[in-house]
């Protein structure tokens, strides 16, 4: 499969990349890891006139904590998240997510920024970022702006990024003491999109009661879904199996999956419920372990 011809631009700085975007806007696509874009080009589902390869821009791959946030550079590879000691120890939900994306070779190139900017509800980071209450930093001709994750996903393959902007960083509030998170993904085989996926991040108080919960759903609708009612029912409550069951039902109710080769609507909704139950149970265990 051969992509349609395009002109290749390889900026060495962010301002240079932004000026190419301003020049070519609608006709250009940003190439980061390329593992969503290149398959689409090969299938000719997309045929942009220009590809702006941002991989040559230094300083966009980092994982660091500062100013109360975990900051992840947009070009950070999934494999770097998997290998990061900080992610493994303090952000197991992100480790869970990264290691379930595609396969090792794909993770060597695929980026966290691309995973979000692609706007695909079947991608895995969106649900996790919803659960974590992240924000997206977009850089455009007028500088940077911060977009809350809840307003980032607009519709299928459409995000709040303007044509003139590049996603440059993710910011995740550093979880308080007593927090724990999990991402669970049901897939038919390695490398497949989720049949269903659930991200859960919770914080408990000294007594082990739930202070707050974040729940995101993968491949459960046209956009990544926040299971708001499930989160609300947990907040401030003593956690037991019955409460988790109730929350899992509310997560199922929030899911609007469509039937495809991976299963029927009923099956996928049932899997969302089951995965939510399991993810919350494990997340509360991890949170209590962190007290």
């Amino acid at each position, binding site marked *: *499969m*051969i*992509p*349609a*011809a*395009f*002109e*290749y631009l*390889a900026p060495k700085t962010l301002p240079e990349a932004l000026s190419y975007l301003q020049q070519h806007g609608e006709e250009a696509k940003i*190439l980061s890891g*390329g*593992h969503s874009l*290149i*398959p689409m*080009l*090969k299938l000719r589902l997309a045929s942009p006139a220009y*590809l702006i*390869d941002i*991989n040559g821009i230094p300083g966009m791959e980092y994982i660091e904590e500062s100013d109360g946030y975990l900051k992840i550079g947009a070009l950070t590879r999934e*494999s770097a998240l998997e290998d990061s000691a900080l992610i493994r120890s303090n952000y197991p939900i992100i480790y869970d997510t990264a290691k379930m994306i*595609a*396969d*090792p*070779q*794909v993770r*060597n*190139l695929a980026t966290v920024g691309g995973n979000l900017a692609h706007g695909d509800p079947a991608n895995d980071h969106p649900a996790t970022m919803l659960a974590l209450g992240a924000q997206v930093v977009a850089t455009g001709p007028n500088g940077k702006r911060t977009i809350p994750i809840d307003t980032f996903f607009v519709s299928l393959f459409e995000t709040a990024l303007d044509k003139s902007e590049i996603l440059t960083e993710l910011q995740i509030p550093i979880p308080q003491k007593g927090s724990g998170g999990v991402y669970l993904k049901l897939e038919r085989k*390695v*490398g497949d999109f989720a049949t269903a996926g659930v991200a859960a991040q919770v914080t408990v108080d000294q007594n082990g009661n739930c202070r707050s919960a974040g729940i995101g759903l993968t491949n459960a609708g046209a956009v990544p879904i926040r299971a708001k009612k499930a989160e609300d029912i947990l907040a401030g409550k003593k956690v037991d199996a019955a409460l988790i069951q109730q929350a899992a039902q509310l997560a199922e109710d929030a899911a609007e999956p469509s039937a495809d080769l991976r299963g029927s609507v009923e099956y996928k909704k049932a899997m969302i419920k089951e995965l939510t139950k399991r993810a919350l149970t494990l997340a509360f265990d991890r949170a209590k372990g962190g007290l």
Partner: protein
Amino acid sequence: MPKHSINVTVNGEQHTTEVEPRLLLVHFLREALNLTGTHIGCDTSNCGACTVLLNGKSVKSCTVFAVQANGKQIKTIEGMANGAMHPLQEGFHQEHGLQCGYCTPGMIMRAHELLEKNPSPSEEEIRWGISGNLCRCTGYVNIVKAIQYAANKMKGGA
């Protein structure tokens, strides 16, 4: 569309050439350099037959443009033997880690990075490590054994 001049080092040998931006790395290797040991299997980044090392990292060369490799080091299956077979090649031979051999170059290049990062992988780590490579003949039992053989040999064992 204008062609781009690229300079890549493949198996230690420098190549400076002009490529169309849409040329995929796997086609560049096979058709421009005649390095046909790198195979095209699914052409959709699922099967791993086209795996090569790009600056030491295993990637699926059907999903990278040749122009992206500019200034980088590439290693293919042809670069593995150095006089004698590489321990991974020897392992696949000794342990019958192949039947038709189509997936083998990709398996070996992927296993190469795996053993660089983790010289003593468990069976589970090997299976997880090659989860992006499909074999349709043998199943994976002998492939796992072949990688274990190489791991032992590379550590100086028998």
